[in-house]
């Protein structure tokens, strides 16, 4: 077979086919549309119909598959993702495991599959392959099968039949099981196979109509984007995937941040923690979560494991959404956003990035190259998210708040809301009313009235304007009570609620 090469920027050789591993077999895929999703490819081209489509928007988990990479020390890293919104190009250099790829050499079922059978975890069975894959990924990562985290592991999988109890019990039963020898052996082989296909070559695939570029270093990325400023930058595709599957949008050129080496980093530098464009929510949570437990709790309610395994922090800012969860939190922490245009870099306070609904301070040719989060303690930093359902739901109202108290007086307050305006927006009147006030509930109660001066929210399916206003006021109050000592358990956190059960 002749390897075709097309000449990319600056004459660099760009490979025009993808290499990845599917259920243990190396695949070479060329001549494929840049917007082809993994789910469609599996079902239509590979006749692997075990992965189901329940929504085509990342919400139901019926399409869950595992994507495997190795980390710097060569260990396997397993990620569950929603195949319905993964583009084929995002598989470059990885292994994909679908529900059909789990059983052992003699066809025996995997322990995760057996457990679901034993606990009567399937009824209609349509959601089941997705649950199997979520459990399997947790099992392979050896994390996520304990009582305190099983709900999180399964939050991205909807089941309409069982009511979940048997599935949870199946999951919990696995924590004591051992990986069979054949699985250990298979994983060793997988490591080798991944090593074999490992490369830092840039790739670009296309079917002649829709292309997907995969640069592998920052310089390459900059150049590719500068050459095609109308191309769509793709990070986790947890938004862009839906443009394709739900809005039928045509995206002729896409450029992916995911394999750019420099983009896959979280650095600490000059009192900042810097999150680069390819860093997923799950990775960021692991790093920042322990520093600020409140943001970890928020992240746990951000989408689902599958969404967080794909979606990026920078994507959550770059998309300019007024209901994104991270902007209010990161603005309260006084973060900066970095924008790059080829070699020109600039930084601005994150709040200034959001100009109005649908418009950000991002010039043509610029991309988000990092978010700078001040590396300082945040004892008074809190995040509150209100939504119809606790898990895997978009906020109706989201509040990020931080303040400094000096000698019983409030000397700094940063309170930012999502869902209250066309952009994530600070409640400056509330902040003003807090400044200089004694650190006691009464100050917060008084200040919360100013929500009405700060915001004139909209009514939509997630909440009425009235509800948003009242809830926002009450959140300021709740924040005050919580900081000053009358803790109200957060019902979102099942573990906090457990002791209320009689």
């Amino acid at each position, binding site marked *: 077979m002749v390897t075709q090469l097309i000449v990319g920027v600056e004459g660099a050789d760009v490979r025009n086919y993808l290499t990845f591993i599917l259920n243990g077999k190396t695949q070479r895929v060329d001549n494929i549309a840049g917007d082809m999703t993994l789910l469609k490819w599996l079902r239509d081209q590979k006749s692997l119909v075990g992965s189901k489509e329940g929504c085509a928007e990342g919400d139901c988990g019926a399409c869950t598959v595992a994507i495997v990479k190795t980390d710097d020390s060569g260990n396997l890293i397993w990620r569950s993702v929603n195949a319905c919104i993964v583009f084929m190009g995002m598989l470059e250099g990885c292994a994909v495991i679908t529900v059909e790829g789990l059983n052992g050499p003699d066809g025996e079922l995997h322990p995760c599959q057996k457990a679901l059978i034993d606990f009567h975890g399937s009824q209609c069975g349509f959601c089941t392959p997705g649950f199997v894959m979520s459990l399997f990924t947790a099992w392979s990562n050896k994390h996520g099968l304990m009582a305190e985290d099983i709900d999180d592991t399964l939050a991205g999988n909807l089941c309409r039949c069982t009511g979940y109890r048997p599935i949870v019990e199946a999951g919990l039963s696995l924590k004591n099981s051992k990986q069979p020898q054949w699985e250990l052996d298979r994983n060793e082989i997988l490591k080798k196979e991944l090593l074999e296909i490992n490369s830092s070559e840039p790739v670009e695939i296309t079917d002649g109509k829709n292309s997907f570029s995969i640069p592998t270093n920052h310089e390459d990325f900059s150049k590719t984007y500068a050459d095609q400023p109308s191309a769509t930058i793709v990070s986790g595709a947890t938004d862009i995937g839906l443009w394709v599957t739900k809005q039928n949008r045509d995206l002729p050129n896409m450029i992916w941040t995911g394999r750019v080496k420099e983009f896959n980093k979280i650095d600490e530098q000059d009192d900042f923690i810097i999150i680069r464009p390819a860093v997923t929510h799950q990775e960021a949570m692991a790093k920042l979560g322990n520093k600020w437990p409140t943001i970890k709790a928020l992240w746990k309610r951000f989408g689902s494991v599958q969404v967080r395994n794909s979606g990026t922090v920078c994507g959550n800012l770059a998309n300019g959404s007024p209901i994104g969860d991270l902007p209010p939190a990161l603005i309260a922490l006084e973060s900066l956003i970095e924008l790059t245009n080829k070699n020109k870099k600039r930084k601005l306070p994150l709040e200034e990035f959001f100009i109005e609904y649908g418009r950000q301070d991002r010039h043509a040719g610029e991309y988000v190259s990092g978010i700078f989060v001040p590396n300082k303690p945040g004892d008074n930093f809190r995040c509150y998210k209100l939504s119809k359902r606790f898990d895997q739901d978009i906020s109706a109202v989201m509040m990020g708040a931080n303040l400094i108290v000096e000698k019983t007086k409030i000397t700094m307050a940063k309170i930012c809301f999502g869902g209250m305006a066309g952009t994530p927006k600070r409640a400056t009147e509330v902040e003003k009313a807090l400044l200089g006030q004694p650190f006691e509930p009464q100050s917060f109660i008084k200040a919360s009235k100013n929500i009405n001066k700060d915001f004139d929210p909209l009514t939509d399916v997630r909440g009425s304007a009235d509800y948003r206003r009242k809830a926002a006021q009450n959140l300021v109050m709740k924040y005050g009570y919580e900081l000053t000592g009358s803790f109200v358990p957060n*019902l979102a956190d099942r573990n906090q609620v457990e002791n209320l059960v009689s």
Partner: protein
Amino acid sequence: MKDTDGSAKEGTVHKAIRHDSAHKHVSGAAKYVDDIAVPPNTLQILLGQSKFAHAKILSMDLSQVENFPGVIKVLTAADIPGINDCSPFAGDDPIFAENVVSYLGQSVFAVVAEDIKIARNAIELADIRYEELPAVITIDQALETGNVLGPPAVIECGEADQALDKSKNKLEGKIILGGQEHFYLEGQAAYAFAGEDTDIVVHCSTQHPTEIQHKVAMALGLSNHDVTVITRRMGGGFGGKESQGNLPAIVAALAAKLTGRPAKIIYDRDDDFILTGKRHDFQISYKVGFEDNGLINSVIVDQAMRCGMSWDLSEAIAARAMCHAENSYFIKNMRITSHRLKTNTQSNTAFRGFGGPQGIVGMERVIDHVAYHLNIDPLLVRERNFYPHKTSTEYGKTPYGQTVHDCVIQDIISELKKTSNYFERRQSIEKFNKNNDFLKRGIALTPVKFGISFNASFLNQAGALLHVYNDGSVYLNHGGTEMGQGLNTKIAQIVANEFKLPLNKIKITATSTGKVPNTSATAASSGSDLNGMAAKNAAEKIKSRMAEYLAAEAQIKPNEVSFEDGKVLVGANDYNFSDAVKRCYMGRISLSATGFYSTPKVHWNPKTLKGRPFYYFAYGAACSEVVVDLLTGENRILRTDILHDVGKSLNPAIDIGQIEGGYVQGAGWLTTEELVWDDRGRLLTHAPSTYKIPACSDRPLDFRVKLFSEGENCEETIHRSKAVGEPPLMLGTSVLMALSHALQAVNARKAYPNLNAPATPERLLMQSLQLGGPSV
């Protein structure tokens, strides 16, 4: 619960046996319609939908769609050789709208294309001109304008008005209940291909293959025998695939017939939401008269239900809502009036409980309100009003005239209130609420009585087909469909039990109209009651033929032949089952039989709305405890205890699964699942991003479910079991009532919290604020 393998020795009924497809579910090998390997020339279909809720079609130019490369055909009403209707019976649901569109999203035409992307791109080129007409969207608008499908239906017993007048205490109130999207994980799906002559085969995700067969034949101008409909399994149904599969199946069949190529239609999630009917939303107004001790003398209820643009199954749903308006309570004087409202929205349809849930929640609201008014525990009011127990000397009669002679709700409640520690917990909760300003807890224990059988008596029939092949293997087919409820497992258990064979000797096969004809929908919870009996009947026929032959051979009496433990005992000989079968085969004995069953005793007059529509009642109760954050309206189910009567369970593992799943689905309906239409009739919540069914962490933190151990059907149902599909959904009522209890603690019982459903955080916060709950 331990899974047993159902070996012949231990018997196969009343055992916790896993779902027959479980190993295929977990390995991705279970095939659904969209998973069937199809020939490469298979076409994909997409429906063109109305952009208005109510409008005249002035003109329709689809030429650009038709000319789009890759489009093979465009289908409109003019292409239908037979009748342009996909309704279950009323004839008012066009396959493709002609002249007028009646809801936003209605099917107007279809694009048949080489692939779905082509269809999606092409469909945008349709040029349809409309003239908008006034649309009726909400219940209030329909009530105001008198837009109804038919005149109000009334059921009355006793003297409701006089008894109300004479009562010492009187109350009035109203509760609004939202609808519910089925959200079966697998959307509507059909795949059709033409055969020889005029034959058409349709694979369809449906609860009602027979109806699809008939509707396809009607639309294509064929006879029923030309059409074969096959259903292996559904990825969930919940009533949403009782009549809603007709449209896609007909369109697929039409496309296959007109193009000569196989054709497939799979609704994506948005289309499924926007095209199909849902659970009816209701407004229930009530007047109740009662004594100081909680005894209810009279209840007058008005049930206003949004039916959508056509009848669909609304008449029967209204009847069931009326027949459950008294729940488990013997109300001597009662009048129930049902307003079947016509609106320019999706035609609402069957959904697990079929109107029963709305009826029951309405009555539980009445009880809750009465108890609040008297300031006594609602459970005491409930207990005061139950139907007399089955051992009583005098039975109660329902408003529709059926004597309730099997009531066991007292036994269930007395056990559940002990095991759930209800009274103590209620006390400690009230103490907690006094000491907490922001968090309020609530608890409620509510009963369910649910009538089993189709209201329309003629539907209560079923058939089965059983072959014993000459190697002793058994091929089982019946008229029911498998949607996850474990019907096939249960029926296989029943047949295995007849022959005393291990379960793996029974092959379960796809439902097909070619094998069992004229079936009813798998609905009304009746799947195993009806089909189980029919399958048993078929097995008995073969058994008795075998016994007769083998007895004659051995010169003994047929009743001296017995089937045991995989063997057939014939006098001194014991044959392996397969040897016995072989002997019968050599003796030219028919080893194939059809079975049939029709439910005895039931009758129903649809004009007077009186009779004995139900063969028996299923009972159950749930005790739910919740906590609400008054600052945000957020809430959680803390603990749930359920005791449910499934008679003598055919399969406890499957039954528990139905109960848990039903409860969580019912709780979802009443809490997070909110459907929102804008004022032009556009459904805004049409995907899981905006429509929130319960997720994993929404199940109760502490979830204890038990089967009522004394359960045994007084009627001669299949192995004395009781139906379990629908009744548990209504156990979710306890969550709404527990939330009401929590809100009663706001501002020290200032006023009765008129809590509507779904009780979203928003609704709870706003209700709390109205009662004077904490705010600035």
